[in-house]
């Protein structure tokens, strides 16, 4: 089994440590703009709670029969702290092992985690946008209100945006470091 160069090992360590800010920074954000909300309504999703204009978004969305958004809507909040903890721990283990396979495994794990998050977000968004109260005051035939997974989307009088927030960007930065480590490792290998 191939050992990794010290610098590549350090890159793994940094990537692992870059997971830690997820505990203190928002991971995802959803924003809405409308003519009467020029300043926008913004909701942030953290590792275990929501923040921002959640009440206002609920106030606006109840007219079209959308569910009341609250912490209880996200079972992920109960276990995400452990998942993130395990990922960090495995990253440090990968650094300690310092073999090529540990780098690849950790990268794979992180990529899988990212994919899982996106799938989960899509699933939630679909539920939230389609599961409408049949007694809603405003019903638009054929209209559903699924927020965009990433990027912008127009929903009636609102423009909605969804995308990663600080914590996720840091995580993505860590994954990029892992990619760099992989590329460097391959170059070192071919140089031999």
């Amino acid at each position, binding site marked *: 089994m191939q050992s990794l160069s010290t610098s590549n090992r350090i890159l793994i360590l940094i990537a692992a440590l870059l997971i830690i800010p997820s505990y203190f920074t928002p991971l995802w954000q959803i924003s809405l703009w409308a003519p009467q909300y020029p300043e926008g309504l913004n909701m942030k999703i953290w590792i275990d709670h929501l923040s921002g204009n959640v009440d206002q978004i609920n106030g606006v969305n*109840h007219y079209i029969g959308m569910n009341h958004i609250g912490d209880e809507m996200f079972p992920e909040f109960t276990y995400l702290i452990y998942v993130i903890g395990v990922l960090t721990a495995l990253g440090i283990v990968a650094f300690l092992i310092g073999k090529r396979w540990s780098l690849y495994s950790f990268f794979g794990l992180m990529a899988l985690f990212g994919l899982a998050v996106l799938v989960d977000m899509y699933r939630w968004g679909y539920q939230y946008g389609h599961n409408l109260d049949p007694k809603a005051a405003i019903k638009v035939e054929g209209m559903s209100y699924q927020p965009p997974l990433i990027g912008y989307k127009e929903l009636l009088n609102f423009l909605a945006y969804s995308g990663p927030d600080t914590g996720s960007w840091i995580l993505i930065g860590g994954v990029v470091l892992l990619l760099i480590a992989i590329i460097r490792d391959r170059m070192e290998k071919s140089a031999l």
Partner: protein
Amino acid sequence: MKKNVWLLAAGMIAVALAPSCKPKGAQSAISGDAASKVYVAPGEHDEFYNIVSGGFNGQISVVGLPSGRVLKILPVFSVNPENGWGYSEETKPMLNTSHGFVPWDDLHHIAISTTNAEHDARWAFANGNNTPRIARVDLTTFKTVEIIEIPNSAGNHSSPFITQSTEYVVAGTRFSVPTGENTDVSIDTYKENFKGHISFIAVNPETGRMNLSFQIEAPPFNFDLARAGKNKSHGWFFFSTYNTEMAHTLLEVNASQKDKDYIMAVNWKKAEEYVKAGQGTKKKAKYAHNTWDESTHSATSTMMEEVLVLDPKILKDIVYFIPCPKSPHGTDTDPTGEYIIGSGKLAAIIPVFSFTKMLAAIEKKDFEGTLDGMPVLKYESVLHGEVEKPGLGPLHTEFDGKGNAYTSMFVSSEIVKWNIETLEVLDRVPTYYSVGHLSIPGGPTGKPHGKYMVAYNKITKDRYLPTGPELAHSAQLYDISGDKMQLLLDFPTIGEPHYAESFPASLIKDKQVKFFQIEKNMNPHALKGIKEARVERKGNEVHVYMTSIRSNFRPDNIEGVNVGDEVYFHVTNLEQDWDVPHGFAIKGANTAELLIMPGETSTLKWVPDRAGVFPFYCTDFCSALHQEMQGYLRVSPKGSNTALKFSTGEVE
């Protein structure tokens, strides 16, 4: 005969041509691109807040400058059915006085709080003239948060002027009145029994809370206006007086006899020392002190019992009189604090007094006599100089911070700009018509912002589309940034503005309260969520604990109320977003609506006078379903046993 025809023809031609010979009026007064200087584009904000007294409407208008747009009418001393001020149970105590509930007053002057003689714009103070009171308005909520009644006073006109760091706000009485134990005296005994009390109200530097610290028992003159010394004259206060003749009838004639009245200079630092040394006398006096608590969203009225009075006849070196020509109205200190400008409304000159000379004259005891033991200084010893031929009827002077003074001339309807140092008249512009007070942003402070000047005119006549016998009072905006004053804009005002102040919007714009945190609402009747909504009966009182949130009331179906019950609607607005007030009104209520801010609780009392079903609804358009925001309350005849029942959204 033929000659007569020719004369007639010539006469007719002369008449036809006559209008074109008249001097040109306002049309020619506008020059340059005035429109663009007052144009605030849609979505843009004005540069200055202009806090304007409403005069006989007892309110304050909040105006933007330079546009002249009215942003808000905020009730102070007068009930305001528009938002339930003085009608809701929470606000009623604000208008309590020693005479009971008083629903109106005459609000003349504004003082914006200062620190070191510069606007900090934390609070606006305003005077109630008729039933003497001073109010404090919080400029983060634009709400009246405190009203203190002034005892031993009548016609609180010489008020609410403040010291340079808002240590004190003063209240000088316009009417001298008999005070003390026996006030049932003959009006003829004016000179013996009438007193002119000057009140010093301390302002807490942190909270703004007012406390009537002491009064000075002055001679029975009429006190008109006042200004605190600032910078070098900090520690002194200057009050203009008229009717020093001490007349009590036909003042128009009898109070205009003397060539000179006085500016009363008060060494309040010295007075403070006497208070500390226990030199005052505690006297019985009943007055109300009303405070608004934003944590409970409600007011409390406390009746006070005594006041500390200083007697300047015994306590020397507090009060000095400066002779000032003919019934001075304004007494204004310039930004440096060195000059005191007296505007004698019947005088032909404007005297400018020097603070340095005043101190020297006091030092040398250069007095022309005494008034009940209080020194009267010599006019010439205190005089810096006189502005010659300024115009007719000088009233009030403001400053631009560049060494110039601007004095309004009521009788000759003009504003005169002059140099404080040289006393030279630099410019004059007409006003339309009969100008009262002037207001320059920061004008009365140690740091005027200059740029604009507003003239508040007393007579309007033909300036706007006519509206019957009563016309809007007119204000005029001038550009004073150049050498010459330039008229920019006419705009109508609300009520009858007397004095106003302006300050840069940036001072408070970002400090505005947008809504009240519902978790912090300590009103005893507040509801924290829709689940707490309920109706309770206590004897003949029915308490409806109601929530409002877009777009429903909970409960919205109520039964079990009888004719003659006292029904209290305690409505909590559960919204937590800016600009989402809800209203509440019920048919036949003898009060007014409630207008409840997000996170606030207000109470409306209603005594149903007949059986039936009474609708109630939201009065402030709140959402697309505002028109659905309504409910019903059933009233049964007196003595009925209809079960108390309340619900929302239940359909059988």
